[in-house]
């Protein structure tokens, strides 16, 4: 079962890189007084919330090293 956790963390690393690219675009090409900054903040908050909830749910369960 531990392989599921490995898969999740590999996905998480890729997702964070992807998010950095997206947020960079919003930061780089946003204009004065537009919605890019609020949108970036909302995106980061929701993303962290999803990740934290998932990690909490994972930590509450047992992850045996093999499928059984």
């Amino acid at each position, binding site marked *: 079962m531990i392989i599921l956790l490995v*898969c999740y963390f590999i*996905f998480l690393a890729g*997702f964070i890189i992807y998010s950095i690219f997206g947020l960079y675009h919003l930061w780089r090409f946003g*204009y*004065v007084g537009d919605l890019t900054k609020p949108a970036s903040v909302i995106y980061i908050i929701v*993303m962290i919330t999803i990740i934290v909830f*998932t990690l909490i749910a994972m930590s509450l369960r047992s992850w045996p090293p093999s499928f059984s």
Partner: protein
Amino acid sequence: MPITSKYFPSQISGERVFLLVRRHWIIFVAIAFFITVLLIPILVLIIYWLNSPDIFSGTIGNFVIVFAGIYTLTVWGLLLYGFVNYYLDVYIVTNKRIVDIRQKGFFRREIAELHLHQVQDVDARVEGFFQTLIHFGDIHIQTAGERENFVFQDVPRPYTLAKEIIQLHEAQIESEYEPQIVHHVEKNVDDYRPEDYVHPQLGESVEANAQPKVQEATAINEANDEESEGGIKYLEESYNPEEGQELLQEFGDKDQASVANNQPADEERGFDALDINKQKKSDQKSSEMFEGEEISLDDKYREI
């Protein structure tokens, strides 16, 4: 209402943004709706889990948690992608040009520019039920030459925007063909006519603005006159007729010698020796400098 502060990254100094248009918000709502629909399975899963938590115990529960975490983050990431695509597509109309910025994904960004004077025709198109109902459509800007036409896609109030673009284009053309007053610093005061500065719309305020310029020219002319009088007086005092005769005699001898030696005329060499040619060149240069100092009415308008 123009925006005077710097509003977009490639904005030139002094360039004022008159229109900043994105696609209609309904386009993003449509994108967001389709992406949000993808979250329905997660909602169903959560409701199911709250009602009977035992179902997800054991190995299946582990699968569900990992899958749900990955799925939710993927949908959230797609929403970011949709937002970047929607929000960074911008059409900007300034007092000088039209800028079309298109963001296609994270790694493709196209920026096209069109100067306002290159605009030939602008037409707005509203096609279909939803576009008519929600008041959005396309604006096609025909350009001079072989350039591709500019298309503002799915913009709100296309008819109004098209009209505003045409007005800005006309204003640009008018400002290009406005008469420009070119003058020398030494220009006679009488040649300044206040009506030259009267703008058809702004009227007297520009005329009043011209008054200090006339006073300045008067002061310069008076100073020049005093300087000239002083110079003549000095020449009159320092002129010695005997020295003049000697000089003339000397140049006469040199002229004869130059003809014999096939050299340039003594007048030329003589003038050069006396730095008169240099003086002439210097005068010409300064005159050109003054001619280069143009005062355009356009600048006056901006100051007001």
